[in-house]
C-alpha cells in the first residue's frame, strides 16, 4: 500500500499523511516541480487542475484553476514559503478572485511536504495540512470534491439531528 500512515487531529485541524513510492526523491519531487505532472494528480478526473503559473521559489507564486463538470473554473494559488529541492516544500494554498489576485476573505491552508529516501530505492513523502478553521476545510473540500462534500454534509446533518 502506498499510503503508510495517516494522523488526524480534530483539535488542531490538521492532517498528516505519509506515503511511500518506488522511486527516488528526485522523481517524487518532479510531481510537485513540473506543472504538467502536477496537474495530472492535484485534481480528480472530474475536476482537473490547470496550472497557469509555477514559480517554485520562496516568495514565488503558483496559480491554478480547476474545471468542474459544469464548466465552472474556480481559481486558486499557492504562496511559496519555503523550497528545498528535492526534500521539502511549504506553501500556503488559497483561493483567488476572477482576476487571479488572492481572495483575502477566504481562508488559506498550509501545506508542508517532506520527501526523504528510506532506502532500497524507496522514498517517503510526508504531507501535513493545517487549517485555520473547519470552515476552511470545508471550502477546500468543496473545490473538486462536490459529490463527496454533499455526502459529508448529509452525514453532518444526521449528526446534528441526533444531537437535537
Amino acid at each position: 500500500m502506498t499510503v503508510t500512515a495517516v494522523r488526524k487531529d480534530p483539535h488542531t485541524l490538521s492532517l498528516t499523511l505519509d506515503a511511500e513510492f518506488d522511486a527516488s526523491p528526485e522523481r517524487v519531487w518532479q510531481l510537485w516541480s513540473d506543472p504538467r505532472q502536477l496537474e495530472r494528480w492535484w485534481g480528480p478526473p472530474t475536476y482537473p487542475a490547470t496550472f497557469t503559473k509555477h514559480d517554485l521559489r520562496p516568495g514565488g507564486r503558483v496559480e491554478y484553476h480547476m474545471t468542474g463538470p459544469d464548466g465552472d473554473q474556480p481559481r486558486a494559488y499557492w504562496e511559496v514559503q519555503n523550497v528545498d529541492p528535492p526534500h521539502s516544500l511549504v506553501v500556503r494554498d488559497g483561493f483567488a478572485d476572477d482576476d487571479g489576485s488572492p481572495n483575502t476573505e477566504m481562508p488559506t491552508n498550509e501545506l508542508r511536504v517532506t520527501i526523504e529516501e528510506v532506502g532500497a530505492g524507496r522514498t517517503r513523502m510526508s504531507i501535513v495540512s493545517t487549517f485555520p478553521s473547519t470552515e476552511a476545510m470545508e471550502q477546500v473540500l468543496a473545490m473538486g470534491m462536490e459529490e463527496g462534500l454533499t455526502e459529508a454534509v448529509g452525514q453532518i446533518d444526521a449528526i446534528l439531528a441526533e444531537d437535537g
Partner: protein
Amino acid sequence: MQIAPPDFDRMFGALADHTRRDIVRRAIDSEEGVAELASHYPMSFAAVQKHIAILERAGLVTKHRIGRRKVVRTNVDGLRVARRLLDQYEEMWRGRIDRMTQLVNEYTREEDR
C-alpha cells in the same frame, strides 16, 4: 452554495479560535469549572467566560452540575463534525496519492524501454 444550517456556521466560528479549541480539548476529560479553566490562560476570567459562552452556544461544550460545582464538558458529538471533515480531506489526499503513484510508475516504465 448554501450548504450549512445556522448551527453549523456557529460551530465553525467557535472552533476558529485557538483558545476556544484549547478549552474544547481540556474539557474532554477534565472536570473543571469556568474559574479553573480560566487559570490556564493569560487573560481575564471574563474573557475566558466569554469564550466558553460562545462554545456553549455552538453546542461544543455544556455545563454540568456535580454537587455544588458546575463543570464544563466537551460535547464529543460536536467534535465528530470536525473529524468527519478530516476524513473527507484524507479521502481527497488518498486520491491524489493514487494518481501520483500511477504517474511515477508510468514514467519508470517509459525509462525502462
